[in-house]
């Protein structure tokens, strides 16, 4: 059972050179329980090193997502370096961008990350290529993982919490051939501040979607009652209603005196109906006592 307020994030990078500064900054430790990919972890924050290419990125994202307790409420962030076809004067090496579109060059598939916050960096179109781009023709960023990451993350997560952050590591005047491992690490290091800001903002949004108190209540009730899927749906609704009224649980006799699961759900619904009217009445009475405007 996941506690209320428990946040999870999955960061996906292609290379160890990209992982190192992130792992240090987030104080992650090697996760020895992982198989197939190098993983780092602290509490709910996971970092996975996919290796280069969109297929590996997709596999790593799926593997990482499967290891999360609540992927539908988790933050997914792909961080990595990219070649740039943008104006090198306006956007020199080290410039950081959030992807506003991710296009897969081979298939033509296109994704539009859902931008529901004010990003701390400019946005750009990202093109995922299967080969290293050396011509930098269009005014976009070129890299090799984002589409694989994004399409896999979308299967597990909430669209607004899935993003790809890219740091310019090469462009026409400083081509990819000149790039070395130390530079890659330095570029990602330079992007730590916006990375942290984005993680903070997305975590705040993830908390807004946190439905775990209702889920916890339902799990508790299901220990005593076996219910069909339809009744479980009704139970979930009634749990949310109960919590919306500021009540943590139902009186125990509702559960113990119900002859079966269906009767329990029906009793619970009647209880919450009455409670909702009583709650409003008592609030109004308090307002009147306080002489508050009505």
């Amino acid at each position, binding site marked *: 059972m996941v506690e209320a307020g428990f946040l999870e994030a999955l960061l996906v990078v292609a290379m160890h050179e990209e992982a190192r500064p992130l792992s240090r900054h987030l104080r992650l430790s090697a996760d020895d329980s992982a198989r197939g990919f190098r993983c780092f972890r602290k509490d709910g924050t996971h970092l996975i090193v996919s290796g280069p290419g969109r297929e590996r990125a997709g596999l790593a994202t799926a593997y990482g997502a499967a290891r999360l307790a609540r992927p539908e409420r988790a933050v997914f962030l792909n961080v990595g370096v990219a070649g740039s076809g943008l104006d090198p004067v306006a956007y020199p090496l080290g410039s950081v961008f959030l992807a506003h579109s991710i296009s897969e060059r081979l298939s033509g598939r296109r994704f539009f990350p859902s931008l529901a916050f004010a990003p701390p960096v400019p946005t750009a179109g990202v093109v995922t290529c299967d080969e290293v781009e050396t011509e930098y023709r269009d005014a976009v960023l070129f890299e090799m993982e984002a589409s694989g990451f994004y399409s896999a993350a*979308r299967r597990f997560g909430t669209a607004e919490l899935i993003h790809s952050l890219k740091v310019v590591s090469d462009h026409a005047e400083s081509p990819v051939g000149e790039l070395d491992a130390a530079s890659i690490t330095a570029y990602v290091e330079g992007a730590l501040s916006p990375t942290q800001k984005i993680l903070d903002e997305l975590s705040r949004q993830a908390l807004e979607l946190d439905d775990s108190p209702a889920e916890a209540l339902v799990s508790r009730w299901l220990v005593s009652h076996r219910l069909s899927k339809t009744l479980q749906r009704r139970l979930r609704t009634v749990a949310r209603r109960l919590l919306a009224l500021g009540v943590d649980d139902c009186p125990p006799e509702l559960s113990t005196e119900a002859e079966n699961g269906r009767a329990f759900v029906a009793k619970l619904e009647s209880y919450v109906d009455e409670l909702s009217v009583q709650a409003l009445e008592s609030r109004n009475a308090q307002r009147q006592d306080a002489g508050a405007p009505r």
Partner: protein
Amino acid sequence: MIRFVYVESEVLDHPRVTSILSRLPKAEVIEIDRFQEVFNRRAQSFRLQKSQPTLILARKHEGFVLPTPEGYGIGGARNFYFSHMMNCLYDCRYCFLQGMYRSAHLVVFVNFEDYIDEIEATAAQSTTEPSWFFSGYDCDSLAFDGVTAFADAFLPALERIPRAHLELRTKSVQVGGLLRRDPHGRCVVAYSLSPESTAVELEHGAPSLARRLEALSRVQEHGWPIGLRFDPLVFTPDALDRYRGLFEQVADAIDVERVHSVSLGLFRLPQSFYRQLVRQYPEEELLARPMQTENGMTSYRDDLANELRDGCESQLLEVFSKDVYFPCLSS
């Protein structure tokens, strides 16, 4: 604030897109093929998008004008609605749009002329009966008018379409455009109104009741026919007191003798929309009240619904003439 505008390639050079973008100089423009690439995709969160909605400019290809659900209307026999826009700037917790879409992004279909052509063709289907066209069904008619110039496009067109009547349904106080124009007898400016305390609790981002009443009064004084829409009625144990106060406030603010139409409808939603709302806003007390579902529609439990509707109706008819009262029976 709109930070991102997605524009379909097909309308990138449309004059209305140019005009809209000129009003949003700080927004970043992202080109797309079709608005569905961004709007209503799987696993999107209406709630999160609502905190920072983006604008999508698109072309509508079909279904410009549709018949209203049965029971929806203000006295006419031929009733239609059209949506030049999907979603709303305001964030009213009872709004069915939250359950209808997975996206809170604002979509504006910029080919207004195609809507106008279809309105003209629909009105021409009857040579005797007036046709009513309701514009505030999937959006607020005027809230985004400062950007889209919707009224500037549709009101002159209305003048040349015989037997066409238009309802602009709104909570917006952006009425400058209406006040700069001669009023049109076949266009009703209808305000959605709730008691102030209900508005504060549930109508996030919408103008206060006082400001809406002030705008309503100015629009009426200018000569526009005005409508009053007490829809949805929201249950609270003191609802009848709240609504009595509201009806009195409205009567003080405007000339009740010159009101075109008044309607009233209970809080109601298709069951699937209601469930979606509960999923999006589990902590919302409005949704925790006693509800029942009948024929796929979820509304207050019968006893509460009857008390609320009947009580409000009798109070309403103490203030407004029965001749202008149209209960909203639609589902």
